[in-house]
């Protein structure tokens, strides 16, 4: 099941050249770049593993691409996402986030309904590998 989250996820996967171009865009805005990875793309899993510290003060995307390549090598069949953080006062938040790698075979996220008192429905999503 194709996981969609962050920017561009309804497009075909970005190739490395396109990823680098997006990173150039972020660096041009002085955003710090973080690389994160996980096996669990569940939408409630907001804490992915950090691949090293976020990178401040880079001038060129080549440095980030190096980290992405290393991260892929160390964590094959993981999701890898790029977060671009804007430290400007008032923003202080991730301004852009996109998936840069996904496993060949993606897990499915299954929804189950549980009817409780007063005919309320509780929904649960479970990642199935």
């Amino acid at each position: 099941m194709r996981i969609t989250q962050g920017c561009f996820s309804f497009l075909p996967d970005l190739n490395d050249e396109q990823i680098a171009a997006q990173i150039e865009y972020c660096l041009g805005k002085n955003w710090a770049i973080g690389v994160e990875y996980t096996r669990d793309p569940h939408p409630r899993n907001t804490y992915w593993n950090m691949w090293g510290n976020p990178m401040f003060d880079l001038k060129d995307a080549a440095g980030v691409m190096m980290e992405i390549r290393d991260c892929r090598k160390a964590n094959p069949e993981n999701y890898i996402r790029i977060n671009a953080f804007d430290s400007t006062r008032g923003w202080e938040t991730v301004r852009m986030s996109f998936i840069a790698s996904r496993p060949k075979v993606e897990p499915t996220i299954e929804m189950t309904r549980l009817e409780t008192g007063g005919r309320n429905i509780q929904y649960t999503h479970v990642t199935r590998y």
Partner: protein
Amino acid sequence: MAATFNLREAFQTSGVAEILDTLDRELIGLAPVKQRIRETAALLMVERVRKDLGLAHETPTLHMSFTGNPGTGKTTVANRMAGLLHKLNYVRKGQLVSVTRDDLVGQYIGHTAPKTKELLKKAMGGVLFIDEAYYLYKPDNERDYGQEAIEILLQVMENQRDDLVVILAGYADRMAKFYESNPGFRSRIAHHIDFPDYTDAELLHIAEIMLDQQSYRFSPKARDAMGDYIKTRRTQPHFANARSIRNALDRTRLRHANRLLETGDGIVTPEMLSTVEEPDVRNSRVFSQGGSVEKQTIA
């Protein structure tokens, strides 16, 4: 008719000619260095045109080694080099990241690789300048973490030639030893540029330019005194070429200011405020102490 290309015009319009001219104007002496830079620029220009005209071309490797005594302009030239390579489209961004051993090598196991990589990443798109590079290698300690930094550097210098240029700098004799023990570096560096010591006349010229940049000038007699200062200073310990001149001028300005304040009636003109007189130079300790000022601040 075969396609033609106006090389000289491209040279002018790319801004490269301009950089080389400023380099010529602002840096005194350094003839062999300037010559090598011109040649490198020409090579890159020709490669670019060959590429445009569809001829076989191979991006040359531009990692460099700058050797020379202290204050001979290595750091200054490295800075210009970054700008020049940027204008020539050889590096994408053109920043200079200047480091020494402590920036690259960590204190404990697992500390070095992230440190080295962090700086490499910052230098990508530009130039990584490693000053006194031989400190990376400590032959008497085989567990030294410097070795780890060296290995990462070698790998990136080889595999990411398009992403950054590495310039190693240091004193000639120690660099020679360093390359002997680290053949990996030697083979990855195609350009060895030697920075000669400045002649007395060049140093005097540099002194005048430095003063001029701060809107001061020598009186004719002060200029002669500066000439004598340079001759004497050169024979004393810790002589550092242009840097010694810069330091001497800083102290000369102190004495100049003090003289204005302490002598006469305290009325000054713009002329007086910007003219360095003979005693401002002559009252330096360099003249009184002869050759034995080791370990002492030379004033």
